């Protein structure tokens, strides 16, 4: 079954390849609106991104038994995303969006860990997102008299200012919810952590990107960056709009980063990390400059790769050990060495360290911020980047390093090959994106043209150009490898015999010998002292959950109030009707 669905997942890719950029389908749906699929450079980018992600996840799924309905829903989900990114009008977009919502809902509901509350959270936020989208859609329709993107785009200029603002806010809210901007991220963590393990990778890597795609669509295509500039005016070298959005993004990434550090569950950490990384993208997406767009797109790509890799890696570990918490894992490095290396590559990418692709995307984003002189934004990004090292390290240490926390971890075997294949592919991709960042400029330039922004000069595969400097990824990675090998050779030349010490208790421990039951794994202690830092504590002790909980309570109270009305006896009902009549009579007739 897996192979069949693997092939089925290949079909959209082939389909896209076959059309080669000229896909344009229109279908009369009803008399008043048509469904249309149009291939734009942006859409193509996202389409390939999501389709390939699905393919890789499907490969990983070979290792476990999944039901037919699971595969069907996943296929439906991938087709829905296909529909979203290739949509030429809002109806198609929305249909894809909603199919995505419910098919993913049903997949998530198949998880073993899922509970009703998390499911409710997920679906209600998704629906809120969808409803905000639909509200924007119909308001746009009321001026453009069409759901077609291009028509709405050209009509947008003539709308009144408050309608323009409303539209932007509605669409942004919708896509922010999907991407999990702070405040609207209430569903993200629970959902990502409780979804089926492999499916979390799709949620984080692909589905959240649909929110990003939506933002691109709105800012770049429907409203247009030029229009945004005209609407809101400029600040420094960027737009007021971009500045506001950037603060939202920065706040998201900082808060989520700190939250991530304190998580004990692996997938929750990854979920917060996902929020933080999407925060970066949201920061730069509104800049309205070529580098902003390029940075956002590059980071989209990189984040997809990294999150797929990390989630598949974690899923494999969870499947192999049955543990999903840092406090229960540890010391797997020599049991599952390949997985370790993959995760290591993943977190180096996630932290944005130079030789890998993660750096290239961050570089692009930072440059965008410098280009617009949004210095504080840049500081915020750098700051959250620095803080993210902590959770990156927690991830690798908590799972692979240190000491195993239980006996069965010491006998764990390497994860099945089907988990490793996609990871290896993704790791290679990460290395390649790091080595050839220039290749990506070629992908981005058509999109920039689509958004009528200036293009980025291209000078060789390895070189990433930007307004304020460039770097050669190929050089850095090769220099890194060369030095690495040299030092390694040098140090192995120095012969010094050492006994291989894999006994967990044979360490220097203040002169003591740790007892058998001493916990030597430090994994769950991570981030605890963060509470002592005032700034971090201010972030950590606040939570959006209290707001949403109280909202839920209020709703319930209202509901109880109303339902009490309906328990009145028929006498009162009658009386109400008569009184209503009398009231209307006295108001209406006299």
């Amino acid at each position, binding site marked *: 079954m897996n192979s069949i669905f693997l092939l089925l997942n290949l079909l959209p890719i082939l389909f896209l390849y076959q059309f080669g950029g000229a896909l344009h389908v229109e279908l009369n749906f009803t008399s008043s609106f048509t469904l249309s699929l149009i291939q734009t450079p942006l859409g193509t980018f996202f389409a390939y991104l999501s389709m390939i992600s699905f393919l890789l996840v499907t490969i990983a799924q070979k290792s476990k038994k999944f039901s037919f309905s699971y595969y069907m829903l996943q296929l439906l989900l991938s087709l829905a995303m296909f529909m979203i990114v290739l949509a030429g009008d809002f109806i198609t977009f929305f249909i894809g969006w909603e199919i995505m919502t419910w098919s993913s809902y049903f997949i998530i509901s198949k998880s073993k860990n899922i509970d009703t509350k998390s499911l409710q959270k997920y679906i209600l936020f998704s629906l809120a997102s969808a409803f905000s989208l639909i509200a924007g859609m119909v308001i746009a329709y009321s001026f453009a008299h069409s759901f077609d993107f291009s028509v709405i785009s050209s009509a947008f200029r003539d709308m009144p200012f408050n309608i323009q603002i409303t539209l932007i806010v509605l669409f942004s809210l919708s896509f922010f919810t999907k991407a999990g901007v702070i405040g609207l991220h209430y569903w993200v963590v629970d959902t990502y952590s409780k979804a089926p393990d492999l499916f979390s990778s799709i949620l984080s890597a692909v589905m959240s990107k649909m929110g990003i795609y939506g933002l691109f669509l709105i800012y770049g295509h429907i409203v247009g960056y030029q229009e945004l500039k005209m609407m809101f005016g400029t600040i420094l070298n960027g737009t007021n709009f971009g500045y506001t959005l950037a603060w939202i993004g920065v706040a998201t990434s900082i808060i989520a980063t700190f939250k991530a550090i304190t998580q004990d569950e692996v997938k929750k950490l990854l979920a917060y990390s996902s929020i933080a990384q999407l925060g970066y993208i949201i920061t730069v997406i509104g800049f309205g400059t070529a580098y902003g767009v390029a940075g956002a797109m590059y980071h989209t790509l990189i984040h997809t790769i990294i999150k797929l890799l990390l989630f598949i890696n974690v899923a494999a570990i969870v499947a192999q050990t049955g543990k999903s918490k840092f406090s229960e894992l540890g010391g797997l490095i020599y049991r599952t060495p390949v997985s370790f290396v993959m995760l290591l590559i993943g977190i180096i990418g996630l932290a944005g360290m130079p030789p890998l692709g993660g750096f290239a995307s961050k570089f692009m984003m930072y440059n965008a911020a410098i280009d617009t002189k949004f210095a504080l934004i840049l500081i915020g990004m750098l700051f959250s980047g620095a803080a993210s090292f902590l959770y990156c390290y927690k991830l690798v240490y908590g799972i692979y390093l240190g000491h195993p926390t239980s006996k069965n971890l010491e006998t764990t075997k390497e994860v099945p090959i089907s988990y490793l294949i996609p990871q290896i592919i993704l790791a290679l991709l990460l290395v390649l994106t790091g080595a050839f960042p220039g290749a990506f400029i070629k992908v981005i330039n058509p999109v920039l043209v689509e958004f009528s922004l200036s293009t980025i000069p291209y000078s060789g595969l390895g070189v990433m150009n930007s307004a304020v400097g460039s770097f050669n990824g190929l050089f850095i990675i090769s220099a890194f490898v060369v030095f690495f090998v040299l030092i390694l050779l040098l140090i192995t030349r120095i012969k010094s015999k050492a006994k291989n010490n894999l006994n967990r208790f044979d360490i220097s421990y203040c002169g003591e010998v740790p007892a058998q039951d001493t916990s030597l794994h430090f994994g769950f202690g991570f981030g605890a002292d963060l509470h002592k830092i005032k700034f971090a504590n201010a972030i950590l002790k606040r939570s959006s959950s209290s707001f949403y909980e109280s909202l839920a309570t209020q709703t319930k109270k209202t509901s109880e109030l109303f339902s009490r009305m309906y328990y009145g006896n028929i006498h009162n009902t009658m009386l109400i009707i008569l*009184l209503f009549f*009398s009231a209307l*009579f*006295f108001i209406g*007739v*006299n």
Partner: protein
Amino acid sequence: MNLKKELRLKHIILSLLSSALLLSFLGLLMQVKTNTYKTVGDIFLNLNMQTATANAVTSVVTFFRGIDTVGEVTVLFLATSGVALMLSSTQRTSKKVVKQESFVLHVGSRLLMSVIILFGVYIVIHGHLSPGGGFQGGVVIATAFLLLFLANPNMSLSHGILTLGESLSGSAYVLVALIGLFKMNILLGNFLPHPVGEIGELVSGGIIPVIYILVGIKVGSEMSVIVEYFIKEDYYKEVYDA
């Protein structure tokens, strides 16, 4: 005490409300200028010569607004069925009232009954000539059975016959309507040759007397059934209490 006060307050308020409504309704309805238009009824009066019945109300009821009457008969039928549904199912006690009717009552009621039925039939048949008609006659016939029940609680009606009368007359009524459709392409069309006789004769008015007779049978049997159910119910309760 408190509750009582509250209740009284509620009553006072409601009575005040009712009177206020009454006054404003009076004020409103006093201004009503009755129809500035020629009503449908006036036109019907003019048309009535065609249908050739002496009683214009009857022609309106059975012919001009004939489908109303079909509906009305249906409503009555449905109500009867509803009453039957409600009241027939509970296990009736087989106990009979011990008290026997007296001879005078026995003979008197039966004598009176035949007269009443005769009167009812007269009203039904002359529905198109004089005040009265199927409904009125039917109800009069039902009172005959009421009389019987009052005289002798042990009595029971033959449900078979009543049902037969009820359903056959009803179906026949619908059939009359359908024949009209087939013959004249108008439901309830007056397909019988008319005028056969002059206005005021018994055989006149086309399908109107036919319909009224059918309605009479139907209403008579239905009302009898209803009457029976309620009488028996009341009786049942007495037994139950005792």
